[in-house]
């Protein structure tokens, strides 16, 4: 493996990102692994970025492209809010992202999920995958880890969940995808947006439920070398 080539690879986010609507708002979820080739460049990144007080976006694909697109849209939305005189709607935020993604489709490589709450439409999720199409969905999944979740969501998602049910669903889904996708990992971050405001939650990787054939996390067995008395390994 040519390490030099790998460290110069564009910084991408393997990723699992999820957005789910529930009765009264939305829950956005993501893992936290950013990779450069085969090296994990950041094991605790935050892929859910704020666009306005009530609209957040989950980023996947090229880290640089998605960061710059969200920076531009945050700036446009700020201007729009000032001109409009009231908080921007989720639909406007999603459309601004779509315009940038579609009009620069040859140069950008980023898939985004926009989620938020506004007083006109309530909680809404919009998916904007690679080519720049805009699609409003009751739930959206994206990133390399999402391949493992299509069947799961077909079975597990239902209309009109409560806030806790929705958040538990998102955490379970990201956790399943981390177990199977090499490019996803780290911690699970969630953002709940409703009429009352925004709540950020954090689920460390070693506290997640264990799936098929996963082992309990252990401290390094090298601790035996440092222990005072030579005891046989206790497994």
């Amino acid at each position, binding site marked *: 493996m040519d*390490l*030099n080539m790998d*460290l*110069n690879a*564009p*910084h991408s986010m393997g990723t699992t990102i999820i957005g789910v609507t529930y009765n009264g708002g939305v829950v956005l979820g993501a893992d936290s692994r*950013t990779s*450069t080739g085969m*090296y994990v*460049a*950041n094991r*605790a*990144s935050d892929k859910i970025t704020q666009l306005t007080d009530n609209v957040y976006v989950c980023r996947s694909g*090229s*880290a*640089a492209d998605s*960061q*710059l697109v969200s920076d531009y849209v945050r700036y446009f939305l700020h201007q729009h809010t000032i001109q409009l005189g009231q908080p921007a709607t989720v639909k406007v935020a999603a459309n601004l992202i779509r315009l940038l993604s579609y009009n620069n489709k040859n*140069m950008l490589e980023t898939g985004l999920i926009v989620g938020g709450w506004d007083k006109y439409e309530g909680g809404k999720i919009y998916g904007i995958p690679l080519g720049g199409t805009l699609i409003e969905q009751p739930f959206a999944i994206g990133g390399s880890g999402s391949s493992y979740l299509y069947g799961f969501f077909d079975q597990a998602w239902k209309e009109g969940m409560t806030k806790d049910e929705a958040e538990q669903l998102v955490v379970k889904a990201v956790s399943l995808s981390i177990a199977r996708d090499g490019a996803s990992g780290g911690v699970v971050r969630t953002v709940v947006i409703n009429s009352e405001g925004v709540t950020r939650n954090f689920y460390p990787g070693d506290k997640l439920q264990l799936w098929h054939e996963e082992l309990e996390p252990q401290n390094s067995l090298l601790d035996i070398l440092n222990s005072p008395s030579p005891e046989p390994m206790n497994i």
Partner: protein
Amino acid sequence: MSKSVIEMPPKGGFSFDLCKRNEMLAKKGVSPPSFRKTGTTIVGLIFQDGVILGADTRATEGPIVCDKNCEKIHYMAPNIYCCGAGTAADTEAVTDMVSSQLQLHRYHTGRESRVVTALTLLKRHLFNYQGYVSAALVLGGVDVTGPHLHTIYPHGSTDTLPFATMGSGSLAAMAVFESKYKEGLTRDEGIKLVTEAICSGIFNDLGSGSNVDICVITKGAKEYLRNHLQPNPRTYTSSKGYSFPKKTEVLLTKITPLKEKVEIIEGGDAMEE
């Protein structure tokens, strides 16, 4: 009839017109000149009073070490420093440019520069060049909002971290950080950890070597410890020293000052008509 020429606005970015010619030349055996890269291990960490940045001092040109003691920790602002890995010309040019922009910004606003300002200026520039400006940076500083540490990749993406490593020796240095870093380190503990991480890069990575540079930034003060540690001294030096063979005779000594001394006479009369 005069031909009207439409003024085209200058196109930004790099011009790739000569790429085909270069390919053709390469096939015929003419190799392009190699450029100077900093193989590099650069690190940064946040400790209880601020930020500590560290770097090795080897610069390479292909397989040759072209500079055994180069400076990789660049000045951005009195309270912000930036370590650079990648092509030496790119890191120096981009940090110089943003340092000047920050100074102009300080004049405009009358305030101390913030680390996020430097971060945004750097990432916008690097993104506009789509990764062709090969500069991977560790930016650290202390401003009114507190201590900050960021990494910036050549394509323009950034991360905000409590401890960070970049460069070819980043894996060796990160291994040291991951096992020994904890929050709330004191100044001495922090310097010791950064030195260990850079040494790990120096001894285990071929692209890094020579000495360890450290820069400690705290609120209102900074310390640039150039060559804080020199674990690679020259081993075989002649005890007699070096001198030219006796047959070299000095025939003529002529000293030409390069800067002219100019006398200014104040208070001359204005031109009279």
